Every structure is written in structure tokens, then in C-alpha cells.
């Protein structure tokens, strides 16, 4: 370590002596540190000129950089740099990146879209995003719906039809399901009979005698259920009347109710109180035609498409 000793480094003092011998050490900042500090000052000045920095009057100094974007009204706007404008510009870029796909989609038929692996991939990702934004609040994220409120889109039963065209029609114009409350015209005994009949259609344990009477009521003019649900009780898709003979339940929560008595009671409740909550909003005007088309294929591909 002889070479180190040759370098003498004496501790600096401030140079002033108090009381004759009292000195103060001086520890100046390291040179590299000081110059780094100067560099940060220069950086800050450059930064001020490029980006928004100082409050000024009622606004602020915008800086030299700007962002141009097209807003939702289709107007081109230029604004000094800010994260909101940056977000809108990003959205413009994302929309531009999606445009070729949407253009292709509006030119293709539903069947072509479903059979094209690339488009299929786009539908699954883009459709999922639109579905999550617009549909999932009611139909749930996977389209499984909620018994008693919102229909399941993944099964093979459709109130209004599961073809591409019917799904599209539902999306564009919305739907309004309605069933009158039969407690106004029928007595409790009759409703119980009807409920037993409906239970018998799906093979649920029931009172055979009541079901027989219910059958008569169903097909007779007193209750006139067959007007909407059809004589075979398989429903009418043109009015959205559900098929009562299958294993799928939307309004009466039969699958989750324990015991045959309970299941019949659940059906009884629906017949007595009717329904006026089967409302699907119309999406025309809220979503673009291409978005609705994507959703149509997406919903069709959820598993139940016909």
C-alpha cells in the first residue's frame, strides 16, 4: 500500500480559527454529486418547456409538447400534454388498430365469421370486452344469467330464438317479457292445480289429480295459458313465452328449491304474481352496428347458438 501513502489528503477546514485554535472541518459535497445536481436543474428547465409545469393565472403553462386526438363527437382537438388527452389519443390508436377487424366483420356473414379462426379469436377477445361492459351486469360475466332475473345465454333454450338473426334482433331492439298475474282471475286452488300441471311437464314430483285439473285449466279459456305457451306447452318464441316442458327454469327457481312441495310452490308464485321484469334494453344507438354484430356472434358462440 506504499503508493497510497504517497498521496497526502489533509482534512479541509473552513479556514477560520476561533479562540486561536478552534477550527471547523469543511466537508464539501463530492464533485460528482454537485454536477449531478446541476444536471438535474438543467433537466428541470428542459422539462418545464416541454411539459405542463407552472400555474399561471387561472390556468397553467402548457409547455411545448401537445397531443392531437379525435374526441367522441369526431372533432379533432389539440391540447397541451396531459394524461387525459394522452388516454384519448391511446384510445384513437386502439380504435384504429381494431378498425380492420371491424371493417372485415361488417363485410362478412355470421357463418363466415364463426368459421374464420382469426375472426373467431377476435370475437372471443373483443366480444368478451363488449359483453363485460354492456351485458355482464345482468347476464353475468360468463353469460350464465341469474335464475329469477336474467336468462342464461349459455344453454340451448331461447325465449326469442337463438339464431344469429334472432340474437341480433334482440340486441338491436331489446325485449320486454310479460306474463299477467293470474291471482287476479284464478283462485288459489286453481293456481295450485296449474302449478302441479307445469311441474308434471318437467317430470317433477306432483299431485296427479291436481295436475289433471291443471291440464284442463291450461288448455281451457279460464286460464288460457296455451295462448302464449302453446297447446304443447313448448312456448312461443315470437312472444318470448318460455318452453315449460324442458329442464331449464328462468323465473321460478326450481332447481335450487328443495323438495317437490317447494318446487311446486315456486311455480305457483310465478303464476300468481305474473312477471313484468323481463326487460332487455335496446342496444341500437348505444353500441355501433359492428359492435352489435360482434356481440351477436359472441353470444351465439357462448354455447347455445342455433
Amino acid at each position, binding site marked *: 500500500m506504499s503508493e497510497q501513502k504517497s*498521496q497526502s489528503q*489533509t*482534512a479541509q477546514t473552513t479556514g477560520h480559527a476561533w479562540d486561536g485554535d478552534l477550527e471547523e472541518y469543511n466537508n464539501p459535497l463530492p464533485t460528482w454529486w454537485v454536477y449531478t445536481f446541476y444536471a438535474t436543474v438543467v433537466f428541470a428547465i428542459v422539462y418545464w418547456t416541454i411539459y405542463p409545469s407552472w400555474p399561471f393565472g387561472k390556468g397553467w403553462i402548457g409547455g411545448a409538447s401537445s397531443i392531437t386526438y379525435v374526441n367522441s363527437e369526431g372533432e379533432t382537438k389539440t391540447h397541451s400534454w396531459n394524461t387525459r388527452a394522452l388516454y384519448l389519443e391511446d384510445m384513437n390508436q386502439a380504435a384504429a388498430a381494431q378498425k380492420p377487424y371491424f371493417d372485415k366483420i361488417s363485410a362478412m356473414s355470421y357463418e363466415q365469421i364463426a368459421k374464420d379462426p382469426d375472426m*373467431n*379469436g377476435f370475437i372471443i377477445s373483443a366480444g368478451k370486452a363488449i359483453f363485460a361492459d354492456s351485458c355482464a351486469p345482468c347476464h*353475468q360475466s*360468463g353469460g350464465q344469467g341469474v335464475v329469477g332475473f336474467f336468462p342464461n345465454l349459455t344453454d340451448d*333454450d331461447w325465449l326469442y330464438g337463438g339464431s344469429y338473426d334472432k340474437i341480433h334482433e334482440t340486441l338491436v331492439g331489446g325485449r320486454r317479457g310479460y306474463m299477467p298475474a293470474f291471482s287476479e282471475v284464478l283462485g288459489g286452488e286453481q293456481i295450485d292445480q296449474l302449478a302441479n300441471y307445469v311441474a308434471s311437464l318437467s317430470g317433477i314430483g306432483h299431485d296427479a289429480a291436481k295436475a289433471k285439473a291443471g291440464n284442463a285449466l291450461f288448455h281451457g279459456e279460464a286460464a288460457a295459458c296455451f295462448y302464449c305457451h302453446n297447446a304443447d306447452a313448448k312456448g312461443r318464441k315470437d312472444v318470448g313465452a318460455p318452453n315449460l316442458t324442458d329442464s331449464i327454469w328462468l323465473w321460478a327457481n326450481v332447481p335450487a328449491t328443495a323438495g317437490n312441495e317447494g318446487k311446486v310452490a315456486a311455480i305457483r308464485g310465478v303464476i300468481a304474481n305474473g312477471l313484468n321484469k323481463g326487460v332487455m334494453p335496446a342496444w341500437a344507438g348505444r353500441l355501433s352496428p359492428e359492435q352489435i354484430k360482434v356481440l351477436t356472434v359472441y353470444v351465439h*358462440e357462448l*354455447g347455445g347458438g342455433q
Partner: protein
Amino acid sequence: MQTDSAGQTGLYQKRIPIFTRSVKGRFRRFKTSVLVLAYTVYFLLPWLPWSRLDAPAQAVLFDIPGRKFLIFGLTVYPQDVIWLALLLFIAAILLFFVTGLVGRAFCGYFCFQTLWTDLFIWIEHFVQGERPARIRLSRQPWNREKILKIGGTHALWLLAALWTGLSFIFYFSYAPQLLVDFFTGQAALAAYITVGIITPSTYAAAGLMREQVCTYICPYGRFQSVMYEPNTLAVHYDSRRGESALGRAPVRAGQRSLAERHEQGFGDCVDCGLCVQVCPVGIDIRDGLQYKCISCGLCIDACNTIMDSFGFPQGLIRYDSEQNLAAEKPTAPKLQWKSLKTIGYGAALLLMSTYLVYSISTRGSFDRVVNQIRQPLYVVLSNGDIRNRYQIHITNKSAQNQTYQVSSTGIPAEALDLGSLHEITIRPGHSGLLQASVRLPPELAAKTHHFELLVTPQGKPADARSETVRFDSPRQAE
């Protein structure tokens, strides 16, 4: 640490320039051959052509935007990250294994800091001459000769550093095109940034900082010290032989032969100082094993040269272990590998290398992931059947377009429905998605908890891969 008059410790020490003398010998030859081999690979590999159907004809290409590494016939995708993990593990274990046996062999012969410093010293030697000439040049006042020589050295260093940076980026894009693009200003910003970082850092690390990188910056050098064992072979000065009773002594009349020197009590070291002059980190190995030593073996070469010239036996400085040097009766140095640590590292090394080779050689031509759709887990259909749905992601890892088909075992064949896409053709390096649904009658559904989905590349039944997937059905109420 030096102390000054006020008793304060100075924290900063100015670098003392090291002018290394060149030397010939076994270790120098080994170092040179490692250097030549490493440089041949590093600088020329990006230029090796390799014909491919769908990618640039470059043997080794790390295609970052395309998310794949092309290494000769092998294409590595991000999901193969386990190979990188294995490689890093193997590298680490190899370092531990070797360090326990022969000390900092990595530092001395293979580390890129050592290699580039070696190259830069060679450039310095080429321009300015041997050690005495370089010392004279550094001491003389600035004149035409000094400006030309020092300036020329730095210019060549910068050029070497620039080519180092360029060679690095050549691995990430088609090299011939990138070279042209780089100098016409059309290369990607990342290329300029990378070269902008690597060039000055190479210049600074190999030209200006050199041994300071090893001494002050590099953690590997330091933590390798803890891997030394008493029987680890390292570069040692045999002080018992070199110093004897009265210490080193220059060769002069009456102290010329070994017999004379031994009789008078002098050691074998003639104190020529050559071992210090050749040392790239500027230490004196005769002070004993020290943390600055990168174990490059040049002092062994230097000492052996001197020993030869006086007719003394070689090996005053040699690879030996502390244990052996301190022993009553030193034996010939030999590798001490019979310890649990060494054998354990060796076993781990062998195991992981075998696994890596196995994993690469048995890689499939495609990847598949089957995800069961969980929203909802199952659907009850109108006739009471239970349906589960699955998304099958397939990634084509082969070099051609490939069509894939999906079939099932463990369920009736008609239960599997692939919807509108019955098979999918995927471009090389791309992924595709198939949606499958499986529909079972309630009785069968209740019994089925798992089944297999089989993905088969068309025309390659041997490459088929199966995946066991769950089948969910409602719990039977009551």
C-alpha cells in the same frame, strides 16, 4: 487506508495506473485461446446464415417483437422460460463447482471484463509498445508523439467498444440489414440506445476502470472468496521456498546456483518483480492470497520464465492449496474433489444439464393449454343434459403451417362438440383458439369427473398430446 494529519481517513483513492508487461507461457496461451474462441463466437455468430421458411436467415436471432428466440434449428418461446431458468441455475452451480476446486477460474480466464481488458491492453501494447515504453510515454510531457499514441489508443478502444455494442444488437435483428440501417439512421431507437450504453460502458470498463471493476464493483469476485476451501487450488507463491531463512535475494556472484543460495539461507525468489509487472490487477502475489487476485495465472508464467532462465525448477508461483503449502511435507498439488460440497455441486450440475438436454430434445412441436370455462362451470340443457365448455389454446412451435384436430377419450365420441371450427390451421409461432363443449346425459355426467382431450397435429399422430380436464356437474340435491 491512508490517514492524514488530522486523523481523518480518506475515502477516495486515485487510481494508480497499471502498465502490464506482456508474458509468454502456458496460462497466457490458455487465456489467448479462450479469448480467440469467445470473440470468434461473439463477433461472428450473428453473421452465420441459417435458412428458415418464415424468419430471417440468421443462425442466432433473438426476435423480441416476435416473442421468440431463434437458435439454429431451435425456436424458443416465452413459455420455454424454464430453459433460461435451468441455464442460469447451471451457470451458477458451475461457478460454485469450479470455484471450490480451482478458485476464481471464471474471473481469470472467462469473465468478459477480463477478456475485454485483455483486448484493450493488447491494443495499448500494439500502439504504445511494451511496459517501459508505456511508462515513459505516460510520464513525458504532452507532445506530438504522446498525443498521437494516446489518442490512437483511445480511438481504437472506442472502435472496439463500438463494434462490441454493434455486435450485441446484431443478435436482435437481421444483422446485414441492421448494420446498414444503423448507419443510415433507420434502425430502431432501441438499437441506438443499446449501442449508446454498451459502447461507452465497454470503453470505460475495459479501457479506463479495468481492475477497479473487479475490485470495487463486481460482486461475483467477492462472493467467490467464501467458496474457497483450505484445499482449493489457487495461484500461490511458495513463500517457504521463495523466502527461506533470509528472504529473497537478487542473483549476483556467489548466489547464482540453488546450492549456493540454499547454503547461505536465501530463498529461491530472485526478486525480479516480473510477477508484479505482469499482474493485470497490480498486486504482488508474494503478499499471499488476496481478494484482488483474479487468478489469471500470468504471474506463474512470468516466474516460470525467470526460473527457467536461471535453471531453477519451475513452480515457485503455482496452483496449489493453502493446506498443502502449510503442510509438513508438501506433496504435488492435485485437485481435491472428494468433498461433499464438490460432489454435491457436481451432481446438481449433471442432473440439471441432463434435464435441460432432455427437456429441449423432447419438446413438442406445439403447445396446448385447455381452460375449462368457469362462468358457468356447467350448464343444464333443455333435455336435462349437462354441458361443460373448454377453450383450447394451441401454439404452433414448428416451422410450417400446421392443422390441429381435437378428439376426446373417456367420454362418448358424440359428446364432444367443437362448434363451428372443427380443426384449426395455425401459422408458425402463432396461437389459435378452439372452443369445445362436452354434453353428457345426467347419469353419465354424475359419474364423469375427468376425461382426456387429445390434440393431434394433422399427419403427425405421434406428436399428439393429451390433456386431462375436469367435468363438472350439479351436485345432486337431496
